[in-house]
C-alpha cells in the first residue's frame, strides 16, 4: 500500500484489540507495528496532505488542524483504554514501515524506560479560573461628586482588583500544593488563551498531574471538593488523558 506512515504512539504489546470502527487521521484505521518487543501504532496517510510542504500549509488551517488533532487524540484515547501509550506529537511521519522500525531501534532504551515510568498512570488536567467581576463594580458607579470622591473610587477599584489577584493566587497555590503532594508528578503549563479556549474568567492555574489509574477516583474527589470552596474561583478538571505532559524526559 502506498502513502506515508503516521505514528501516534509507542506502547508495550497489548492483548486487547482496538475498537474495529476506530479511524485515525485521514480516515485510515490505525494498526500495530511490532518491532523489538515494542509496538508503534501507525496508519497510512496520503502524501498529498502529509508530506513536509502540504503539512506545513495545513497547520495554518485551523479547521484542518482541529480535525487532525481530534483524530490523533481519538486514537491515543482508545489506546489509553487498553494499555499505557507513550503519545507522540502530532505530525510524526515516516516514509514507510522500515523507517518506523529504524526509529524504534534507535530509541529502544528511552522508550522502555519511559514506558516503565508511565505504566498504569494517567494524566489529569486541572485549571483554575478567576471569574471576571461584573463590569458595574469595576467602573465608578456614578459620576464622582468631587475630586476626592473620584480618587477614592479609583483606589477602591484598584484595591478590589488587587484583592482578587491575591485571592486567586493563594487559592491556586494551595490547590496545586495539595494536588501535587498526592500525584506522582506534576507540570505547570502556561495559562490558556481565552481566544482559543473560549473559557470565561482569567486562567490562573493550568496544571497537569500524573496519577496512578488506581488512585484516580480519589484524585477526582479531591478536586471536586475544592469546587465552590472560594467564591469567584472556578475549578475545571479534564481527563483522564494519556500522559502527554510527562512523556518527555523526567525532571
Amino acid at each position, binding site marked *: 500500500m502506498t502513502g506515508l506512515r503516521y505514528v501516534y504512539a509507542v506502547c508495550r504489546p497489548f492483548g486487547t484489540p482496538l475498537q474495529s470502527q476506530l479511524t485515525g487521521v485521514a480516515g485510515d484505521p490505525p494498526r500495530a507495528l511490532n518491532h523489538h518487543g515494542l509496538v508503534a501504532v501507525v496508519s497510512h496517510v496520503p502524501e498529498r496532505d502529509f508530506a513536509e510542504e502540504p503539512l506545513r500549509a495545513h497547520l495554518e488551517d485551523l479547521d484542518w*488542524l482541529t480535525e487532525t488533532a481530534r483524530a*490523533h487524540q*481519538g486514537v491515543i484515547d482508545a489506546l489509553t483504554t487498553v494499555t499505557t501509550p507513550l503519545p507522540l*506529537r502530532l*505530525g*510524526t511521519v515516516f516514509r514507510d514501515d522500515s523507517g518506523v522500525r529504524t526509529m524504534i531501534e534507535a530509541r529502544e532504551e528511552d522508550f522502555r524506560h519511559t514506558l516503565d515510568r508511565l505504566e498504569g498512570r494517567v494524566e489529569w488536567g486541572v485549571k483554575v479560573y478567576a471569574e471576571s467581576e461584573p463590569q458595574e463594580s469595576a467602573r465608578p458607579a456614578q459620576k464622582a461628586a468631587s475630586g476626592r470622591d473620584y480618587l477614592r473610587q479609583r483606589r477602591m477599584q484598584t484595591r478590589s482588583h488587587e484583592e482578587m489577584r491575591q485571592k486567586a493566587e493563594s487559592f491556586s497555590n494551595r490547590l496545586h500544593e495539595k494536588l501535587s503532594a498526592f500525584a506522582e508528578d506534576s507540570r505547570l503549563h502556561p495559562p490558556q488563551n481565552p481566544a*482559543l479556549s473560549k473559557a*470565561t474568567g482569567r486562567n490562573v492555574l493550568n496544571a497537569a498531574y500524573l496519577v496512578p489509574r488506581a488512585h484516580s477516583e480519589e484524585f477526582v474527589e479531591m478536586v471536586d471538593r475544592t469546587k465552590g470552596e472560594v467564591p469567584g474561583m472556578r475549578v475545571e478538571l479534564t*481527563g483522564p488523558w494519556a500522559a502527554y505532559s510527562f512523556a518527555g524526559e523526567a525532571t
Partner: protein
Amino acid sequence: MTTPSRRMPEPYGYGQGSGANLADILERVLDKGIVIAGDIRINLLDIELLTIKLRLIVASVDKAKEMGIDWWESDPALSSRARRDELTRENAELRERLARLEELEPGRAQKKEAP
C-alpha cells in the same frame, strides 16, 4: 452574567476525543507528547509551534470577530488602543474637574497667574 457551561468530565468514560475543549487537545497534541524526528523532515519543534500558536490565535480571533465577539478591543489590558483611549478619557475628566474647581475658586487661580 452568563453561567459558564461546566463540562463535567466523566472520570472513567474515556471520551476526551469528542468532547474535550479544543484548546486542551491542541495544547497536548501539538505541544506535549514526545518529539521524534520522522524520516521525512516533519518534526514540530518548539520554534515552529510558537508560530503555529500565534497563527491559531490570529485565526480564532478573526473567527470570533465574525461572530461579533470583540471585547478585547475595548479591554485596556489587551489592546494598546483601548489603553490610550482610557487615558484620554481620564485626562479629559480630570481637566474638566480642574476647570470646575478653578471656577469655584477664581481667587486662587488668579493669584497663581499674577505673583
